[in-house]
């Protein structure tokens, strides 16, 4: 009615105005069309009746004498109704709930709602006339207000802003779907199909579970196990949070970002203020996930599908490496033992090493400058935990190797060793480890070095394993396979010879070399047991295969490759993988490229040729070493 009475009165006044014109003609004794005037009179009476009905419908016992009184009556009723409307909206706001996936947002909006309610009640109770609230009645008001947009609804918005600043602020922050009346579904979604909503809910839950699985399958990689442990702990909490969110009865928060397989790279590249919204959503809905990814740098995550590729791409100089959270213990210990070469820390602390780092593919070149203290710290922190495990695993490996040697020694040990060596990084690593232990370097002989040899160590150096490696799972399979594999062609007398080998003992087995074997065939067994009472004859030192991590530890002089300007301008970057032979004198004798960008090969070759290593040794005898070197060029 408040919007009807002015128009009804206006209609009446219009009829009266035309009638009044005819009355003026009569008053001036001028001719008029009486029939027309009578019609006008009837219309005026009809309009008057409408106004009267309008007034009485709202206030049945209303009484008035003249027009002024009637208008005052209407205005008073309007004022009363306006106050009622404000109070009703205040009640409506109080009855409803702000719905949002983020508690902080709900709290913020609820606070705004409280201010809006207070404003409405204050205006309703004020002595002076409250401003007119635009829009429909209270039950439909919020839906209406949430649909206002500029510039189409500028007038309503301006009216709202001018008269109800708090209310305006509240609805400005309220999106459709974020308001639910008491005991009802959100108002902004009245038309949502329940089935579709259920599907949406399921999809949302599925996304959370998929990401939880993705987080479980992936690996946190870092040059410090402590950090890996910390981040893994955060990951576990994030996974738990995701699963809890997916399991709750109410609608889980919406996870921002892409699908699970692409989620981690996306999340790790979020930055403020560019991605403030996504970060806020993540923070509000998934604080644990947020904390996890906040602690995760882009290079610290290896997705399950790319873990192997990442491992293979690791460079000798890179200090980051998968932490092998889910890696089989045997494999991990083996690698850690290899990477525990005491020369690594010394080499990394070489200023020359630091100078070459910026050119290489480490995801965070600047943190390489911090590598030396981290490695030292890691060596101090981790050995207590890893030492017993490593010793046990090495013993197990030694037993398996010994069994293999026995099997092959009957036919051609050298050929068997050569055939087994090149394609298996595990074998190569074990070999390299043994080589280092046997290298007899001063560092290796120190008590500290002895500890490092046997305990888990910073895995950064091992990440640079040059040979292609299968995924961790495959590595386990291969390792087990290598241990238990049935020979494809078993000599007829194999069993007999195995028995003989067993009977004669390890060191006495003919053809078994207790030190490094040609081609890098696992020689860990002799090394592990070298302190035992063996009389194995010393063989002439031969070329050994050394892992890039071990080789890095032996590096004493490094020349930084020059980055061709044309390549840099053309955006050519990447890793040049070189194969080199390190002479007994530690010089690089023969080097050639295996792969890498063509424009970068020659600079890499030129640089590596000038590198110098500490001489490698097998059982104290100088030996040539076959190594792979990864040279990284980053623009």
């Amino acid at each position: 009615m408040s919007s009807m009475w002015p128009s009804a009165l206006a209609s009446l006044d219009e009829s009266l105005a035309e009638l009044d014109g005819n009355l003026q003609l009569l008053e001036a004794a001028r001719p008029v069309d009486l029939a027309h005037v009578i019609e006008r009179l009837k219309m005026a009476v009809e309009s008057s009746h409408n106004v009267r009905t309008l007034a009485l419908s709202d206030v049945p016992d209303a009484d008035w004498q003249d027009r002024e009184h009637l208008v005052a009556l209407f205005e008073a009723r309007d004022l009363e109704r306006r106050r009622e409307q404000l109070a009703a909206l205040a009640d409506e706001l109080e009855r409803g709930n702000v719905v949002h996936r983020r508690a902080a947002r709900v709290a913020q909006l609820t606070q705004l709602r409280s201010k809006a309610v207070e404003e409405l009640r204050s205006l309703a109770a004020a002595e002076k006339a409250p401003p007119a609230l635009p829009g429909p009645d209270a039950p439909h008001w919020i839906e209406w207000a949430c649909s206002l947009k500029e510039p189409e609804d500028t007038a309503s918005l301006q009216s709202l802003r001018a008269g109800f600043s708090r209310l305006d602020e509240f609805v400005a922050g309220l999106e459709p779907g974020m308001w639910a009346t008491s005991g009802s579904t959100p108002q902004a979604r009245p038309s949502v199909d329940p089935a579709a909503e259920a599907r949406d809910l399921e999809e949302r839950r599925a996304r959370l579970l998929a990401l939880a699985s993705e987080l479980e399958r992936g690996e946190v990689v870092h040059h410090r196990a402590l950090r890996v442990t910390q981040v893994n702990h955060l990951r576990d909490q994030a996974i738990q949070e995701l699963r809890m969110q997916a399991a709750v009865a109410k609608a889980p928060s919406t996870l921002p970002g892409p699908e699970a397989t692409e989620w981690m790279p996306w999340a790790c590249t979020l930055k403020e203020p560019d991605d403030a919204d996504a970060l806020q959503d993540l923070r509000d809905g998934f604080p644990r996930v947020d904390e996890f990814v906040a602690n995760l740098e882009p290079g610290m995550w290896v997705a399950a599908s790319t873990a192997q590729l990442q491992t293979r791409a690791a460079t000798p100089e890179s200090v980051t490496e998968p932490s092998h959270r889910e890696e089989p213990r045997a494999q991990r210990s083996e690698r850690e033992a290899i990477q525990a070469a005491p020369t690594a820390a010394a080499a990394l602390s070489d200023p020359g090493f630091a100078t070459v780092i910026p050119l290489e593919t480490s995801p965070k070149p600047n943190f390489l400058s911090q590598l030396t203290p981290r490695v030292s710290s890691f060596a101090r922190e981790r050995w207590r935990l890893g030492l017993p495990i490593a010793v046990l695993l090495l013993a197990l490996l030694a037993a398996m190797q010994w069994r293999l040697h026995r099997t092959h020694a009957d036919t051609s040990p050298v050929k068997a060793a050569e055939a087994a060596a090149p394609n298996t990084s595990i074998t190569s690593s074990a070999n390299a480890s043994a080589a280092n232990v046997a290298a007899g370097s001063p560092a290796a002989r120190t008590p500290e070095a002895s500890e490092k040899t046997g305990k888990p160590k910073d895995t950064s150096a091992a990440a640079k394993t040059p040979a292609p490696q299968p995924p961790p799972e495959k590595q386990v399979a291969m390792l087990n396979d290598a241990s238990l594999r049935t020979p494809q062609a078993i000599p007829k007398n194999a069993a007999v010879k195995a028995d003989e080998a067993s009977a004669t003992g390890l060191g006495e087995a003919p053809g078994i070399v207790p030190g490094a074997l040609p081609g890098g065939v696992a020689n860990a067994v002799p090394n592990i047991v070298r302190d035992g009472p063996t009389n194995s004859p010393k063989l002439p030192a031969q070329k050994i295969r050394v892992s890039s991590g071990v080789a890095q530890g032996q590096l004493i002089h490094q020349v930084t490759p020059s980055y061709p300007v044309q390549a840099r301008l053309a955006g050519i970057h990447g890793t040049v993988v070189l194969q080199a032979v390190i002479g007994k004198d530690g010089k690089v004798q023969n080097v050639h490229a295996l792969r890498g960008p063509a424009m970068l090969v020659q600079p890499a070759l030129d640089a590596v040729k000038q590198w110098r290593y500490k001489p490698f040794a097998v059982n104290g005898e100088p030996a040539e070493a076959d190594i792979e070197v990864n040279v990284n060029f980053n623009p």
Partner: protein
Amino acid sequence: MVSLWPSTINSLNDSLAALHGSLGKIKAARSVDISEVIEQLKSAAESSRNLRALVLSELPEASWQNREELDAIVEEISKRIEARNLEQRRFRLLSLATQLERGTIVHRRTVRLNQLQQLRDQATKELRSQAALAQPPALPGPESDEWIDWACKLKEPEDADSLQSLRNGFARLDEFIANLEPDMWTIKKETTA
């Protein structure tokens, strides 16, 4: 006709006032009797038509657009009527004076006859004197040829108003008539030339 002016105008004004009262109720959305309002409207229209007819009878070429212009025309017509009334009043006084001069007083006694002759002369002078005024008083009674008969028949208290009017405006004429009996006055009939 002169008396029609105020009555017609008043009638129109009264009708319009009633109509405006009803329209006020209509404007205030109060209940009204529509048939009564229509009757008021018709009455106002009738009064308006009468007034227009009066104006046009006095000034056939008159033209106006509103009430103010109408009022000005009515005022002009009123002045004309007033002037005409004064002239008519003056004419009656002079006509009566002439009539008194032409008549003859008849009485058996000469003293009485001379006395009445003298009163007649004073009355005649008074009439002529009054007719010379800018606003001559209105002489009650009929036209001059019937006036002596009418005046000699006036008697109190029945004709007190006319006698009072006569006494107030025309004291000498009143004294002459008061001494004149109906059979004491004779007048020669005017012969048509």
